[in-house]
């Protein structure tokens, strides 16, 4: 070792020992590194605005179906089907535009750990999907269709994020807590659904509102985690 390497070791030793003050190095070692890893791994997940147009389109369609239902019930007219299709096509283009905006603003990451862990992750995802489809088929047989929609949403969008490991950063831990709370809420609604027989539109609206809030928080978290320019430049 060179002399300056030993100086570095000694300085680090005393800083860790409490003999020196916390500086940017300490901050990166203890907290920033965890944040960086998290935001890189979940970069796609945190782009919450991408799904907002689709949710808004669903809201519009639900509202349209609701007003249509009071005046003239099924069968659905061609006009209504075309309006719904048009709404979703517009939403699809809006989502694509937002995706490009994210790319221009924050760049791009090819996610996924390389090698063996990537293959394991793909197998795990496949197994989870098979499980979800199986459970939903069972629920479809024995329960109300709205319960199946809720359960499918809960298992695909919420459950995976409830069990991921998160760093000790309050904003990130709050995200996981919000996902867990929402999952619990959905499961409660599914349980009560068989007793109360809630309206399908009401359930779907509740589901969409909750998801919308979660995805808006994801977007806020992304901009917050990628906004440490001054701190790291010191």
């Amino acid at each position, binding site marked *: 070792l060179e002399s300056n390497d*030993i100086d570095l070791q*000694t300085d680090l030793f*005393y800083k860790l020992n*409490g*003999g020196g003050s916390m500086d940017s190095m300490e901050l990166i070692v203890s907290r920033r590194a965890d944040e*960086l*890893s998290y935001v890189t791994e979940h970069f796609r997940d945190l782009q919450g605005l991408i799904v907002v147009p689709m949710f808004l389109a669903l809201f519009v369609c639900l509202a349209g179906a609701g007003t249509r239902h009071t005046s003239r019930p099924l069968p659905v007219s061609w006009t209504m089907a075309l309006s719904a299709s048009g709404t979703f096509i517009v939403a699809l283009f809006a989502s694509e535009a937002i995706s490009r905006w994210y790319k221009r603003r924050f*760049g*791009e990451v090819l996610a996924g750990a390389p090698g063996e862990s990537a293959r394991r992750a793909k197998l795990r995802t496949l197994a989870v999907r098979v499980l979800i489809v199986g459970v939903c088929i069972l629920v479809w047989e024995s329960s109300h269709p709205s319960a199946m929609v809720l359960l499918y949403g809960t298992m695909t969008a919420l459950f995976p994020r409830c069990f991921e490991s998160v760093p000790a950063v309050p904003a990130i831990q709050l995200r996981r807590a919000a996902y867990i709370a929402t999952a619990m809420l959905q499961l409660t609604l599914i349980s009560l659904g068989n007793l109360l027989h809630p309206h399908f539109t009401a359930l779907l609206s509740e589901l969409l509102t909750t998801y919308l809030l979660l995805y808006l928080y994801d977007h806020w978290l992304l901009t917050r985690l990628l906004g440490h320019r001054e701190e*790291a430049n010191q």
Partner: protein
Amino acid sequence: VSEPRGMLPEIDRQVHEPARLAILTVLSACERADFLFLERATGLSRGNLSVQLTRLEEAGLIEIEKIIVRKKTVTTAALLARGRGALDAYWQSMEELRARATAPERPTAQRPRKLPGQSAVAGGEA
């Protein structure tokens, strides 16, 4: 000067520098990242990031690829196996250093020359 060799774990200066550590940490969490994402995530200026990337590439820790997309050059970086090993070794060294620093018997009590403050010596000998 020779005493700390056996006492304290070796710290890799290539990895330890905060800007390079941030870059390596980002790259360790993905397969490949482009220049803009690295700039946003690390908070480094373009010039500084470019310099640090070049140094890491010269050290054989990362690979840099430049491709042309719609008449624009897109720079991406990926962590090499050697870089991943260096980063893992760095975290291990830091953990070891932290463990030693918080251990009841502290080896640095014999080295008053390196002390940044007298209070630290008193803490080490206690």
